[in-house]
């Protein structure tokens, strides 16, 4: 994976750093103000999940480009306890981030594609993509 940059998440302050980097990258890719704000919200959700539930982890960004489209991939990885019941956390109303915010269903709505792999005791990897329109 080229053009990949990561931000380690250890303290709440790192969430801001991840948002900043993600916003810079998405601005360069050409995303408008609204999409930049949506991408920033996505990063907040993913990074807060790491900060609150896994303790540490990282959020990585990758600029995507193929012949006819550009986009951004965001991958959040942690080695926390893993998510026991994925279908439950993907349900509306079952919010994460300390009861505040849109949780993973919100992230799914903000992005174009969403993928999650979680193994008990080994951690969780969430990978999302947003395409430029």
């Amino acid at each position, binding site marked *: 994976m080229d053009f990949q940059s990561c931000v380690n998440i250890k303290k709440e302050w790192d969430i801001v750093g991840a948002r900043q980097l993600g916003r810079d990258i998405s601005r360069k890719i050409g995303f408008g*103000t609204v999409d930049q*704000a*949506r991408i920033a*919200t996505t990063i907040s959700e993913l990074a807060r999940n790491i900060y609150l539930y896994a303790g540490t982890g990282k959020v990585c960004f990758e600029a995507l480009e193929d012949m006819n489209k550009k986009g951004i991939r965001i991958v959040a990885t942690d080695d926390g306890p893993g998510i026991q019941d994925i279908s439950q956390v993907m349900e*509306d109303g079952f919010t994460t981030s300390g009861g505040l*915010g*849109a949780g993973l269903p*919100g992230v799914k*709505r*903000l992005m174009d594609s969403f993928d999650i792999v979680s193994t008990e005791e080994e951690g969780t990897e969430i990978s999302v993509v947003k395409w430029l329109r």
Partner: protein
Amino acid sequence: MSTLKLDLENYKELLQEYIKTKDEQALYQAEQFSKHSMQQNISPEEIINVHIQSLQEIYPDMPEYIQSSMNFLLETMISYGLAYQEFQTLREKQLELKSEISVAANMQKTLLSTVKPDLSDIDVGALSVPAKQMNGDYHHFVEDGKGNLGIAVADVIGKGVPAALCMSMIKYSMDSFSGIRTDPSVILGNLNRVVERNVDASMFITMFYGLYNSNDHTFTYSSAGHEPGFYYYKDRDEFEEIDVPGLVLGVSPEVSYKQYEKRVEKGDMIILLTDGVTECRQGDRFIDQEEILHVIKQYSHLPAQGIVDQVYKHFERLQDFQLRDDFTLIILRRNV
């Protein structure tokens, strides 16, 4: 006032007009614009964005701090936008669930349907209205062809789907007993065993079973903790509570129910009901017994079904057209 186009151009024009004229019409159109946008699933942050772009185009020289302030505002709207999208998903789910329950409610209607007996000696009125879509009250008539009419009235603790599911148990169990023995005390004893076996202890059912023998005009009955009914003496023009002891169904595996008998004279009425009738509430005030009996008396010149319908209408209005509990009322009157 033609159909509004949902685009930046349109928003910009409206905005420009409003800034120039401060006209109410532009605000009315702003409202219509936002309603149309909502129909197109447009999120609030997109409205903010259209607003920013319009301002930029109308006022290319607007102060830089305005631009920044609007970007800040946009940031606060993203979460509201997500809530709006979740709302739409939820609304669809809700509709789905509602139609599922309405299918179930229709099934229940077919299932619990009972034919009101048409006997020459006694006049019968009956009405059962659920508070929600599904009914947790049950009533049923059985005729044995030998002049006996069995009348069952039951109420499950609780309302809605769980109560309805429980109610269907009573229905099938009653079906399977029918024709075997019709003594009220035996029927309640049998049902009690079924209920005790099949539902956990937190769920229970109150039931009244009465058997009207139209040959000798006796009314035999037993109650499993059910809301007391009333007996109306025509000659004395007086009501009396039909209150007999008996444990609710489903609490203890072996219960024997006592059976009582009453001779019914010409013009006398038997009034059976569930607590949805007696515990009608008007605001915070409970309706008292007197009021129910008063309303019944008021319409007592009507046939039994007419009385029942009028009593329902009376209390429906009192409760602001929103029943708090399932409502079941049965009236029997000896004619001949």
